[in-house]
């Protein structure tokens, strides 16, 4: 395959799902105005005027029903001298037909997307990694579009349901498709598939004439792994994390090459980002396992162990500590540090939702109830995000015991975290020893 051929192939692959996205946006546009009042008005205008449908974009089965109702009402006027069919009955029937039509469209759409786009990706054996990744990103963009516009569709389905006559009941009404659930399950499928081809993607220096599929895959897998960890999906996070670790090493090498023209300090700040990413994810793996009761911390430590075995001749721990010292001593805003700040804020929100907050008065019930020194150390204050970075936890809980490091050997941020954990640990032990009754 020539370079041109490959570029054309990638361009075509990137367009594979575009038609489906336009279709979905079109469906959303059609039902965007379907609020209960507007819907009643639309129904009346079409039922009352036999030519009104010529100006409306109403699905055919709905239109046929409207025409039938219109003929029925004309008949009533002929036979009884007036309309006798109540408005609620018309609203109920037409809303039901709208609902059936939309649900049928959604179900057909999701089935078609699975059959035409996702299943072939899952089953592709001899595919070129770049081509497959390009197609997967097309699907991921499509799933994002589906999820984004699902609110519009769900709102329309809610509007139809509001016109449902309760005494008449659910007979003939379709069950509502779980669009977001479908998006999540398909997202998971393609995320796993992407992780399977990720290491086959070219990680050599970036060519500006081509899409950066390696870079995009790296970023995607980081976000997907973090999402899976924080949303308690150990199956997915367990699948993604080991691949991500391998990618991070390749990413650091590629960054070093790509940024070779920059001065050393600036380049170093950016080149260490993938290494920090792996430590950060590892730290969050432990935080969320403590928080949610299940997780992949064991897998994370096993993956790190393997890394050390594979790099037995390299001073990996020294390198990691250096990276951390360099990062924690730097106050320059980098894309990586901005992302980490955002994640600390997001995670602190989860802590608050669960009720783990530190108000610094030593009496916080939630902390005491959990009685977990790590969670207590990370418990956010009334304002702001977490007090500590997640990668420091990796250092304190894995790196230090793994290599017999004392707290004094650690960078200041990890030291600070370690001391905090020890303090809470002592506190909880003392309370247990004193037989404090908290029932």
């Amino acid at each position, binding site marked *: 395959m020539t370079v041109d051929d490959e570029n054309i192939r990638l361009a075509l692959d990137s367009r594979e799902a575009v038609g489906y996205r336009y279709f979905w946006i079109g469906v959303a546009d059609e039902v965007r105005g379907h609020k209960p009042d507007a819907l009643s008005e639309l129904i009346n205008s079409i039922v009352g005027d036999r030519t009104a449908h010529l100006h409306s974009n109403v699905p055919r089965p709905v239109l046929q029903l409207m025409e039938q109702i219109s*003929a*029925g009402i004309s*008949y009533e006027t002929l036979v009884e*001298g007036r309309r*006798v069919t*109540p408005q609620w*009955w*018309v609203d109920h029937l037409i809303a039901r037909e709208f609902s059936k039509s939309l649900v049928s469209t959604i179900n057909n759409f999701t089935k078609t997307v699975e059959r035409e786009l996702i299943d072939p990706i899952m089953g592709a054996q001899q595919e070129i990694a770049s081509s497959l990744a390009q197609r997967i990103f097309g699907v991921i963009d499509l799933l994002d579009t589906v999820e984004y516009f699902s609110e519009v569709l769900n709102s329309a389905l809610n509007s139809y349901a509001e016109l449902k*006559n309760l*005494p008449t009941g659910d007979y003939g009404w379709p069950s509502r498709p779980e669009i977001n659930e479908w998006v999540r399950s398909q997202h998971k499928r393609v995320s796993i598939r992407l992780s399977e081809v990720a290491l086959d993607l070219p990680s050599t220096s970036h060519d500006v004439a081509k899409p950066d599929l390696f870079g995009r895959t790296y970023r995607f897998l980081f976000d997907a792994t973090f999402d899976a960890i924080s949303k308690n999906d150990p199956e997915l996070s367990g699948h993604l994390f080991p691949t991500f670790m391998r990618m991070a090493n390749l990413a650091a090498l590629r960054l070093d090459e790509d940024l070779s023209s920059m001065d050393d300090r600036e380049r170093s700040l950016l080149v260490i980002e993938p290494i920090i990413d792996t430590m950060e994810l590892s730290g969050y793996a432990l935080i969320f396992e403590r928080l949610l009761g299940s997780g992949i911390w064991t897998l994370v430590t096993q993956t790190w162990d393997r890394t050390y075995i594979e790099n037995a001749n390299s001073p990996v721990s020294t390198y990691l500590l250096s990276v951390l010292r360099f990062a924690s001593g730097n106050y320059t805003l980098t894309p990586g540090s901005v992302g980490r700040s955002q994640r600390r804020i997001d995670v602190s929100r989860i802590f608050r939702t669960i009720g783990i907050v530190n108000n610094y008065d030593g009496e916080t019930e939630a902390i005491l109830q959990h009685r977990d020194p790590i969670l207590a150390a990370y418990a956010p204050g009334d304002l702001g995000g977490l007090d500590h970075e997640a990668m420091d936890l990796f250092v304190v809980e894995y790196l230090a015991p793994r290599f017999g490091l004392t707290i004094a050997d650690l960078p200041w941020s990890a030291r600070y975290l370690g001391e905090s954990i020890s303090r809470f640990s002592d506190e909880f032990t003392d309370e247990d020893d004193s037989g404090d009754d908290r029932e």
Partner: protein
Amino acid sequence: MTAAGEGSRSSRRSYYFYERTHPLVEKRIRMASAPEGQISGLLSEDLKFVIPYENDSVASLNLSPLGDHQAPNSQMIAEALSGERRATPHNAIETFIRQMAPRLVFSKEVWVELEYIYDNQFDDTTPRAFFIRMIPPGTVEVKRNGVPIQYVPSDRTPLTDKKGRSYVELERSNLFAFTLSDELSKSTKPVTDFLRISEREQEDAREMELLSQAASGDTTLDLSEHLKQKGDIVNRAMSPIGWDVRRLYSGNQLESFQSWRQLKFLRFKVTLRNRILADLNALINQAGQDFGFQANIELSGLPTVLEVDAAMSDFENGRKSASAVYQWAILGGTSWEDR
């Protein structure tokens, strides 16, 4: 002719007959009877549902003696209504009301004669039993001098009027007329007028001839269009009472319309039933004056006009579904199903 046995005497003067009579009398009878024809026949049957058949007995008879008379016998009332010795009171009452409903709708007034049976050939003061005798529709007329007469076949009487119609004189005090209220008359007149005209056209076989030509291609008559238009006309004609012609012509009818129409027909039937019941009570009590009793017939478990109106309001306001009110109405408004 009468129920009087040997040694007994009957007060009955009217006749129930099937023979042909004078043409003018025939016309009177025709104008007061249900016309021959499919639609009229179906309507007559459906009008009998003024009391639903599916139910347990709904009629009850309460009798109390007047003055120092003996306690009355309910079996006597059952026999009087049905003419059968083994009839039970509730069956006799329900059957009487069911049979009266179509007659009254098509005749506007139905005359009955109270026939008294006396044990003694000469003593008129102590009747032993009584019967309620239907008089064929259209045969009774009250003359200007206030004397009621019945036109009868010529072999039953020597009396003839100026137009050559044979008649017998009836006893005014033994006659009773079941009638329609003004409200009911207003509803039924356009219905019966329409049926008399349309059934006559059917009888003349004009429609059959056209349909036959259409089937053989001898005419351009569009059969389906013809049936549609016929259905529209019939349904419009039945609108005052709400009868749905058993949905024979339901082409453009919405489910909601059919439910509404069933309710309308039920309301008509309830109003008609109430009217017949009131007249029947008055009739039994007219006989009770001679026998020394007071009677009160009641129907239970059937809907009132107010309940039908409430169901209509519930339907119009979406508190009841179309299928629920349809089922309720078609079962005579006796029980709501969970639909």
